[in-house]
């Protein structure tokens, strides 16, 4: 193992790791937004919204994220959407993970016992009030862990934007593999950084989960 080489190039990997973190944070925010809207649509009493929500989930989950990214980045200009690679990456990955989060959030909401909404409704709460004061506070606790799984997948998923030349960790690893012919060392450098990011995120999720459970 060429440790000297690793020591020489690791600052570039650190820089790239920041880009991966930025991508992950922005994608998480967009994904949670899409997931919340998607779940609201799927649980709506309006058929049209339910169909839109179901179509979103089905199309996104039924096709590769890489292709979605390519359609947005390379195909976007044809329909008047001009994005730079980073923007396309965030939007493409965010909308993608949003479909998975839709199902997580929806699943947590419908997992709350029917008796809860019945009890809320019998004291005269409206559907919205029952959702806000009774169902959501309970569903939120339930969804922290599975959303953590989604976010874990999302962090690894940010590697896809290497294919549209965003200079993040995987792209950097690939470039240095090409120039140094040292695949294992470069893999190790970027791999460790990914694992650090994932580990810290995982601790954060576990902390939130514990906090939400103190009752």
């Amino acid at each position, binding site marked *: 193992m060429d440790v000297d080489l690793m020591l020489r190039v690791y600052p570039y990997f650190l820089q790239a790791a920041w880009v991966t973190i930025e991508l992950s944070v922005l994608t998480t925010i967009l994904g949670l937004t899409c997931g919340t809207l998607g779940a609201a649509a799927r649980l709506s009493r309006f058929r049209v919204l339910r169909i839109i929500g179901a179509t979103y989930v089905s199309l996104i989950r039924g096709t590769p994220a890489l292709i979605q990214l390519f359609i947005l980045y390379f195909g976007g200009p044809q329909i008047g959407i001009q994005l730079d690679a980073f923007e396309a990456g965030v939007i493409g990955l965010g909308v993608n993970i949003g479909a998975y989060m839709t199902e997580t959030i929806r699943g947590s909401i419908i997992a709350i016992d029917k008796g*809860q909404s019945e009890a809320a409704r019998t*004291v005269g*709460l409206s559907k919205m009030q029952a959702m806000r004061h009774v169902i959501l506070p309970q569903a939120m606790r339930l969804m922290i862990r599975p959303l953590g799984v989604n976010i874990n997948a999302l962090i690894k998923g940010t590697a896809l934007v290497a294919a549209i030349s965003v200079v993040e960790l995987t792209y950097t690893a690939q470039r240095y593999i090409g120039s140094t012919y040292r695949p294992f060392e470069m893999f190790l450098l970027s791999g460790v950084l990914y694992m650090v990011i994932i580990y810290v995120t995982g601790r954060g999720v576990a902390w939130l989960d514990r906090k939400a459970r103190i009752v």
Partner: protein
Amino acid sequence: MTDTQHFVEIRHAQKAYGDLEVLKDISLNVERGQIVAIIGPSGSGKSTLLRAINDLDALTSGEIWLDGVQVNKTLPHRQYEKHINQMRQQIGMVFQHFNLFPHLNVRDNVTMAPKLLKGISKAEADTLAEEQLAHVGMLERIDFYPSQLSGGQKQRVAIARALAMKPKLMLFDEATSALDPELVEEVNLVMKKLAEEDMTMIIVTHEMDFAASVCDRVLFMDQGVVVEEGPPEKIFRNPDKDRTREFLRKHLEGAK
């Protein structure tokens, strides 16, 4: 059409799931302060009837009236939502499985709805909670969470939660069926107390002794119809119908 003479009126209630008819043209009147028990085998439609009174399970046809107002009025969605929430505030309900809100402590379980719907202040809410919980003997558990209570205690809190809305009518859906035998009595005592305070109550129950001791009238339901109704002495001692007799005999055997 609001010439209701009776406090609660159920007119020609009918409910079907596809081809399966679970309520077949049931009519029933309950006067203010009366306590009515509904008994019958499982699947007889007794819970469905109870849940139709506050429209948790909507009827296929028929009308429910409470104190001169139709509960299940035909209205556009938005208006109906408003109307039914108003009506439900006047109809308390207690469930077999308590359905307390696990994320709220006892106090907040009792005061959430009054705070949201009646806009009472925090101080008023606290007084209300203390009052209602004292009533069911649960004052000392006011800061506990539902998971820290026994089944009987949970059910008493659930009753306090319903009473906090100052309902005109209370519905009990097998309120003691999920309890261990030794916990049944404490809930029955609370219900008896309510009866003595002239609360109007409709009770679905399996407990014939309790029904006999507190109710003014007993309805026996089977297969979606009211087979027989009358004062408890009559229904339990000397029923007219064979089906009633059969059910009571089987029930008695089961209880042994």
